[in-house]
């Protein structure tokens, strides 16, 4: 990551454009936390690019005083890949939505993740199509009644984290728009990751899907419904941190800490060789299980841009800087006199 010398404030990261989300939209908080985190880590604005697709969430780049590209629906990962390949020095962020990223853009998202190219991908999951006025999305719960599904949707939802893990993500995290501390933490970790960092952010669309994540944000109950993951630590949660998660065969179950030996609890290992543990965590769903927040997986692996630059360097080393006249004359030639 490139860092600039002058100390940066979140205000420096605000562009001159009026923010145009609905009042109360969760996007505001994500914007503020992103600006805070990027200021904290002292990014270089000139070397930072935000790329997005289309959707309410995809307006994000307009509000960041960095380079930005508000592209077309679903294709931000591909545009961002082009940016990163052209100039691997840049810090490239992708902002996408549950529709943008998992519906029309699923192919592009999949291939960005599997390439392990260093993009920081933030998927704002509000479980709805906001911009087009409230149709169900690939993450909407089955049976959802929306403008396009008056009798309830019939497609089972996609779990963004399981999807990312299934296609080989090296970094997978999850946070909540209004859970400022853990959101900042995940953003910071994503920023630091080499390779594709995939972050799902639960986001409230207060116009079309208000309180979709109430279970995870309601002051009174949220601590019973989510578990913050910490590397090397057992999964403990609940208001008084009296509950834990234990494995029963392959099935995780909630146990009362009182009756359970500490060693029995599932220990989080974000850098496990196999993604199977992270996958199992990603499958934990409210209401039967607490939903994991934080970093599910973070492993080192050579990045796409690194290998690309490596091949470029190898080619230059082996063949020298290309010589046009040599190029033209390759193969059989003959003279006409």
């Amino acid at each position: 990551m490139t860092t600039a010398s002058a100390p940066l404030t979140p205000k420096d990261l605000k562009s001159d454009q009026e923010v145009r989300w609905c009042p109360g939209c969760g996007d505001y908080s994500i914007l503020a936390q992103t600006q805070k985190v990027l200021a904290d880590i002292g990014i270089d604005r000139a070397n930072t690019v935000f790329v997005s697709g289309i959707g309410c969430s995809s307006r994000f780049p307009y509000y960041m005083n960095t380079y930005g590209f508000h592209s077309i629906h679903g294709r931000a990962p591909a545009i961002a890949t082009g940016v990163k390949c052209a100039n691997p020095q840049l810090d490239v962020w992708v902002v996408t939505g549950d529709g943008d990223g998992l519906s029309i853009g699923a192919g592009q998202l999949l291939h960005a993740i599997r390439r392990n190219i260093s993009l920081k991908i933030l998927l704002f999951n509000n479980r709805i199509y906001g911009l087009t006025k409230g149709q169900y999305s690939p993450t909407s719960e089955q049976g959802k009644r929306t403008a396009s599904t008056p009798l309830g949707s019939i497609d089972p939802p996609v779990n963004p984290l399981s999807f990312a893990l299934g296609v080989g993500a090296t970094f997978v995290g999850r946070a909540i728009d209004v859970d400022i501390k853990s959101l900042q933490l995940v953003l910071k970790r994503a920023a630091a990751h080499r390779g594709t960092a995939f972050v799902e952010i639960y986001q409230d669309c207060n116009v079309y899907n208000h309180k979709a994540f109430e279970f995870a944000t309601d002051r009174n109950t949220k601590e019973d419904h989510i578990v913050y993951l910490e590397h090397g630590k057992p999964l403990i949660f609940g208001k008084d941190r009296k509950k834990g998660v234990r494995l029963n065969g392959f099935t995780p179950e909630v146990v009362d800490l009182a009756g359970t030996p500490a060693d029995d609890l599932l220990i989080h290992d974000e850098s496990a060789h196999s993604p199977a543990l992270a996958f199992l965590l990603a499958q934990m769903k409210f209401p039967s299980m607490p939903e994991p927040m934080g970093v599910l997986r973070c492993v080192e692996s050579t990045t796409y841009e690194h290998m690309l630059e490596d091949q470029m360097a190898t080619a230059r080393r082996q063949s020298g800087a290309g010589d046009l006249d040599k190029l033209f004359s390759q193969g059989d030639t003959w003279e006409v006199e």
Partner: protein
Amino acid sequence: MTTIATNPIEKRTENRSSATIRFAGDSGDGMQLAGSQFTNTSALFGNDVSTLPEFPAEIRAPAGTLAGVSGFQINFSSEDIFTPGDRVDALIAMNPAALKTNLRDLVEGGILIVNSDEFNIANLAKAKYPTNPLETDELSRYQVYAVPIATHTVEAVKDLGLSAKEAERCKNIYSLGLVYWLYDRPLEATINWIKSKFAKNDQIAQANIRALQAGFHFGETAEIFPVRFRIERAKLPTGKYRNITGNQATAMGLITASRLCGKPIVYASYPITPASDILHQLSHYKHFDVKTIQAEDEIAAVCMAIGASFTGAIGVTASAGPGIALKQEAVGLGVMTELPLIIIDVQRAGPSTGMPTKPEQTDLWQAMLGRNGECPVAVVAAASPSDCFQTAIDAVRIAVQYMTPVFVLSDGFTGNSAEPWRIPKAADFAPFPVIHPADPTVFQPYARDERGVRPWAIPGTPGLEHRIGGIEKADITGNISYDPENHQHMVNLRAAKIDNIAREIPPQDVYGDASGDVLLVSWGGTFGAVRTACDTARKRGQRVSHMHMRWLNPFPSNVGDVLKRFKHVVICELNMGQLQLLIRGRFLINAHGLHKVQGRPFMVSEVLAKVDEVSRG
């Protein structure tokens, strides 16, 4: 019918100004190789050469079937030529299927060499021949030479210890040798090629050399051919030459353009016939600062190219019809964000999957008009394989100088066939360096220079941080705008910018007289057939000229004037009238069309027939 004559026949050598031959056989028979060797030898000898390879649609269609036939046609001449020839003077058919599918292109009285070993019942059945054509009179209009090529080949190499299969594999080289004799060509180049190709396997090398010589000697000694032919050297411009295919030329043109403007290439594409070869070519040139990305699909490919262009590289993508269709939404983004972007369409027969291995010019409308909204881009087409080189350079120059997507139209024929190319010197090309803005105090993302072009400010430049996107932009600032008048203004500005490119491109020239009875109009790969037809017609005394259009959008500013100076205008295109509509609509002249969609280039005779038709009135 003629079979191998046992009576000695007196041999003569006749001079010809040109000849067209075709090797045809099963796709496993090595016809492409024989064809390219003949091409190289003829080019080295000093002829002008033009070729037409034809592949089967299947990777490996079952041996002996009609679907599995592969062909390679060569026109070689002592004069300038522009086409691979309408019909062939000599056909080499390695099996019944090859005979069946190729015979109709042989001129009456033409030479037909067949590999009689393959004319057995099984193969005849696969070729759907009810009876053996070598045993009926259905070939009576040709000079038929039934040669047991496989037997001869195996015989020729028998003491080298090859397996039967290996031995028989040399039969393409045997037939090559035979044709070398027929057209009085030297063996040397091919022998050298064999030696270097099989440097690691001397046995195979020897076998191929023997086969080559055996074929040649059979022609010489078997005394079955009454004549052989000689085609003298052509008077070509002096210089160093090589053969080049259109796709190779495109790749080299892109690399050259990159050097000339000082910007690296990011080439992102998804494989598709007949465009994949550009990707294959470019993937070898990383030391020229070319990054190639095999994208997950065409949409990703064009988007990667756009992302790269935003970042200051030259984003290039290529595909054929169905893939281009998928790219159009993103090309619109390129238009709105006014970024340089090259989209190469190596056209193939459509609609839909169509006939992937066959050329056509049916994507002109798609390239010019096939997007949502008012969405103009520049469009340029390559006239021939070697012309792909300059076309690619021109496209990049206009893209970076006008901050616009540029469509490059090529086609399966132009992309895959080879022709001699006079090798230029890198130093001869004028650079067109790109200057990115750097001064924050004067920067506005959508301010324009006098040509109507916005600045290309790239990430990494301190102080120029800005945002672009696909929503309508406010003039000057580039902010989002839904203002009605601004939208009209921006639509006008984008259109005017493309029109301004006409200042940059040469005026339309005309070959032949500046006025006359018939103006033949061509674009892209139909250049050769039309130019040849024009020459022929003029020799016949007809008042015919030729206007080949390199730029399809914008048109050079004098096109309307040129058109008006002819009684009849005929637009020749491998489609059902796409440029014709554009020209008629723009200039309101009753332009006729010569149309063909058969997955094949025009024949010169077809163009000539049309000239006669319109001249008659």
